[in-house]
């Protein structure tokens, strides 16, 4: 078992509709929490990786601003971007910097202040996440792409809008328990099914909530982790892959090959299989994405994700609890902060510190984080 690099500190702001301060002040909250959690001082941090989708920020090159505010000069700092998967790419790069011997301790800082831009500015940027030459000119947005994946899954496997509603009902139940979540109301299947259509078959409650927020993870090499931490959480497996930005380059839409590839790599590196996972955080930016993840991660056979869901096997007490912190759907999705928040949830689970969301006895956890509509996928396996 790979026990070279560990996560020794985690922090996260509450995810909120509109953070009442500057980006730097929001980032500071998550950072201070992570540094205190790790029991170190900022001086001990060898480098900081700043994960963000830069078009949502007015500050150019936010790494400089963030490092200055957090007292992380003169250590190296840079920005990493994989849209919504930026945070877990940060983990992959931090792992590498540490394992390569360049740094002993690295901070992975993720943030997004979606409220920094006006609604018109946001709408403008949304169109440019798809290929600006060949897809954006038709008027495309994220929900439309996931809707097309949903439609394909419906057509091939008989999945229904009710199945999608079940995903959201589960998310909302756990979101209500999570004091860092932006959406804390429970919603019923009926509410989900009667909500307005965003992009058929996806309706309002099938879509995650925009939010402002920041997250921070502190990673360390084995020697330092054991010195510093009583409960280090080890990076057992890492997998990453990409797919064509244009849908025309995808073999099929019923699943995300990009996740299947990343998962295979992560399981292989960890020497584990889907059956070994006790708790998982998957990228449920839309309800359909969670269903696809069940299948792409090997928790269910292709087309059988709905069986797992309907049987309640992805709730606490089930075979493989998924997104028991409310997921992106209820916790919220501040793009650059999301991956770090997912990892934080699993770290707390493996430490037994997840409070009302705790999965009893969880020893091995998995994070799946997607960038764009299946353009990027990172899978990370963590263990105590």
């Amino acid at each position, binding site marked *: 078992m790979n026990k070279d690099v560990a996560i020794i500190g985690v922090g996260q702001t509450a995810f909120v509709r509109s953070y009442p301060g500057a980006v730097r002040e929001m980032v500071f909250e998550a950072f201070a929490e992570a540094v205190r959690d790790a029991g170190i001082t900022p001086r001990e941090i060898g480098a900081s990786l700043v994960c963000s989708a830069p078009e949502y920020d007015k500050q150019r090159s936010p790494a400089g601003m963030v490092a200055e505010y957090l007292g992380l000069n003169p250590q190296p700092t840079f920005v990493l971007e994989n849209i919504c998967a930026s945070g877990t790419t940060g983990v992959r790069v931090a792992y590498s910097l540490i394992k390569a011997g360049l740094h002993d301790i690295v901070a992975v800082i993720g943030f997004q202040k979606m409220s920094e831009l006006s609604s*018109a500015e946001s*709408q*403008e940027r*949304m*169109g*440019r996440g798809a*290929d*600006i*030459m*060949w*897809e*954006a*000119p*038709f*008027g*495309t*947005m994220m*929900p*439309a792409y996931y*809707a*097309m*994946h949903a*439609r*394909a899954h419906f*057509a091939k496997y008989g999945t229904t809008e009710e199945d999608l509603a079940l995903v959201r009902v589960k998310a909302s139940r756990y979101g209500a328990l999570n004091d860092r979540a932006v959406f804390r109301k429970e919603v019923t299947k009926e509410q989900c099914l009667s909500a*307005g*259509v*965003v*992009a*058929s*078959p*996806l309706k309002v409650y099938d879509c995650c909530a925009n939010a402002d927020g920041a997250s921070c993870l502190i990673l360390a090499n084995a020697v330092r982790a054991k010195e510093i931490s009583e409960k280090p959480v080890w990076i057992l497996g890492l997998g990453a892959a990409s797919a064509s930005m*244009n*849908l*025309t*380059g995808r073999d099929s*839409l019923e699943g995300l090959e990009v996740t299947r590839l990343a998962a295979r790599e992560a399981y292989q590196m960890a020497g584990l299989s889907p059956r070994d996972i006790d708790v998982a955080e998957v990228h449920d930016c839309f309800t359909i994405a969670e269903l696809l993840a069940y299948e792409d991660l090997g928790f269910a056979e292709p087309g059988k994700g709905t069986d797992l869901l309907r049987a309640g096997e992805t709730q606490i007490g089930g075979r493989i609890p998924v997104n028991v912190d409310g997921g992106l759907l209820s916790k919220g999705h501040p793009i650059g902060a999301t991956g770090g928040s997912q990892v934080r949830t699993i770290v707390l689970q493996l430490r037994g510190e997840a409070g009302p969301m705790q999965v009893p006895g969880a020893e091995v956890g998995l994070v799946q984080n997607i960038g764009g509509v299946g353009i990027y996928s990172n899978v990370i396996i963590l263990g105590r």
Partner: protein
Amino acid sequence: MGFEKFGHKSYTALTKVAGFVDRLVQGELFATRCSGCGRIYFPPRADCAGCLGSAMQWEKIPEKGKLVSFTRVNYAPAGFEADVPYTLALVDFGEVKVFGRLGSTVAEDEIKVGMELKPLVVTLPDGQLTYEFVLGNHKA
């Protein structure tokens, strides 16, 4: 220049495949095929990712495709607000797939994954050129 004529809204003016637009003007939808290794590409490209060659030939998209998936959208990014609702679709033409909008002549209740569709080049009221997918028996 020239490529800014493509699409309901354009984000790119300069490309080596601006010839795509010249062919739209002729009412035809084209892919590119690599002269070196024979790979075919849609979207069209000036360079081959397979053999790294940059000799490409234009090749017409077939008349018969199958709907892979679709969605009817009620919200749109900036510049497309007046168009909603519209239907986005991915259509498989055998060697290549093509992404675009479904024509409004296709009734909402007859849209089905797997149905047969063909491409149709369309000039928009503001003079922009695009293509959409219509029924096989559609008369232009």
